[in-house]
């Protein structure tokens, strides 16, 4: 047999492709997907649309047999002039920004520590699991006792170093920092674990090369660790910010939004408006404003992530 070269057939056009043999696969995929999709449509899309509908209505659920009344955009207009709403916007933004920033700074420090010198990584890891294992509701109630002004452990501890007892959760200026502190306490491990995992996944050779080049620890962190960690940091910030916006349990148990309205996060305000004052339409309007705002913020992060 002699060797043949490829350029032989031209004249006839190639035969048409037969029907693909993947019908079964397609049907299987659809059957596997259908229940979850149907369930999500019913349980997350429908409620959202229903909530949008409610936001254009006025309805007090507590009055028996009452029906929602169409009032157009009045609920939204009212929000604009509502000082409680704007107070809540402010409290929420401060809460999220401060909490996530502090978590990030401390978490980065601990992650660097845990991945470098400290031999006791196993211990640090175990200890840091504690806050994660406590249900937020338990954490809130527990910290409430720790912050207790007359016999709380915190006032006792600062008394040891000569600082006078503080009001904490009873004080309009200290309540929000206290709540933020608990949020930081509970989520610092999350940030630390994620950053530590990110750092450990970086190529070790780069660090050796940088050390051989004579870079200082700070230079290595600034010029190598931080840039390489950027995708992880963005994911982390996105998740942390989204979750900080969701915080409810801690405030609900520690302060219920008080004293006054100094710790009234948006989730707390919506809860109160809907389930304490039963202004369902108003609460729905707040929910939608809240949703859209969060959506825009996360889009920004997702867009940044996509660029990476």
């Amino acid at each position, binding site marked *: 047999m002699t060797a043949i070269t490829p350029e032989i057939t031209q004249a006839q056009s190639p035969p048409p492709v037969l029907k693909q043999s993947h019908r*079964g*696969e397609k049907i*299987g*995929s659809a059957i*596997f997907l259908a*229940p*979850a999709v149907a*369930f*999500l449509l019913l349980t*997350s899309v*429908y409620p*959202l649309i*229903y*909530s949008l509908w*409610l936001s254009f209505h006025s309805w007090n659920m507590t009055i028996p047999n009452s029906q929602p009344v169409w009032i157009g955009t009045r609920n939204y207009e009212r929000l604009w002039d509502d000082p409680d709403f704007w107070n809540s916007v402010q409290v929420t933004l401060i809460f999220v920004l401060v909490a996530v920033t502090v978590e990030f700074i401390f978490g980065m420090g601990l992650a660097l*520590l845990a991945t470098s010198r400290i031999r006791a990584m196993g*211990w*640090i890891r175990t*200890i*840091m*699991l*504690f806050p*994660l294992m*406590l*249900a937020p*509701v338990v*954490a809130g*109630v*527990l910290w409430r*006792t720790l912050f*207790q002004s*007359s016999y*709380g*452990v915190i006032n*006792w501890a600062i008394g040891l170093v000569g600082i006078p007892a503080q009001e904490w959760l009873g004080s309009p200026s200290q309540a929000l920092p206290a709540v933020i502190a608990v949020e930081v306490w509970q989520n610092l491990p999350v940030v630390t*674990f*994620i950053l530590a*995992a990110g750092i450990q996944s970086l190529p070790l050779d780069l660090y050796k090369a940088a050390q051989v080049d*004579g*870079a*200082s620890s700070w*230079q290595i962190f600034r*010029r190598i660790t931080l840039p390489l960690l950027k995708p992880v940091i963005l*994911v982390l910030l996105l*998740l942390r910010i*989204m979750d900080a916006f*969701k915080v409810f*349990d801690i405030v*609900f*148990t520690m302060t219920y939004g008080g004293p006054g309205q100094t710790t009234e996060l*948006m*989730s707390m305000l*919506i809860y109160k408006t809907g*389930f304490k004052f039963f202004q*369902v339409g108003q609460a729905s309007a707040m*929910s*939608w404003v*809240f*949703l859209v705002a*969060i959506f825009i913020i996360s889009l920004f992060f997702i867009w940044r992530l996509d660029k990476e």
Partner: protein
Amino acid sequence: MSATTMTPVRPAPGTPNYHRRKQIGAILLYLLTIAIMIVIAFPMYWLITTSFKVPADATANPPVIIPTRFTLDNYVNAFKTAGVSRAFVNSIVVALASTFFTTILGSMAAYALAKSYLSYAIRRGLMIWILVTRIFPPVTTAIPYYVIVRNLHLGDTHTALIITYVAYGLPFVIWLMLGFFQDMPPEIEKAAIVDGCSFWQRFRRVILPLALPGLAVTSIFAFIYSWNELLYASMLTSFNAKTIPVVVSGFISDQFLRWGEMTAIGTLMVIPVLIFAAGAQRYLVRGLTFGAVKG
């Protein structure tokens, strides 16, 4: 400017000064770390010790940091309180059932999404939608849920809570399982195809057994979510289906009088989480980041 051209400001290695500064720095670092670790660990320590303290020690001033007297009364009293044992049963039923359904529905959906038999547009659209549902704060759908559950006469039932938790757990399970399925070497599945397995056989006989660790981890996260959830539980239940988080949150109005019982219940609440967390440690970061960081 490259890192190499910078002149180091610290003392050169080899000088005595260099070593002393390094040592002092290390000691300070250790002390700081220990201090932070004490703050992080203390609440858990306080929760558990307080649950075994006698009433006088529990609210003593100055506080009793290291208790010397122990009692089980707090646990006994907690269970004597009306509704507490029922709440535990409710929590267990709701958490197990919602975990079961979330894991099954979620991993099936994730498997279908991980395969390329559906068009890319459909899969990408679904994934983005699922991600978006994860972003929404639960409180924003609290009101419609409340109204819908009331209209369906499902208020204060396990069913209502289970449905809610499956809805909130599904996006999480789908994303996490998607990651596990995509991590699987594609050749294994090809081998199964060539061996003649149908779609279902492949999932049942090859993929699912391989994904078992992932499945276990995912269901642990789903369980912990349902177990700890407060907002919907407090909203959708009042008596019959009341769960433990609602009971715990109820203690705040009682102030200091029942700290012992509160801490006892809190301690019991941690136990299943503790057991599961030990199992999921390896995949902790993955779970915490919604599968984004594989840790």
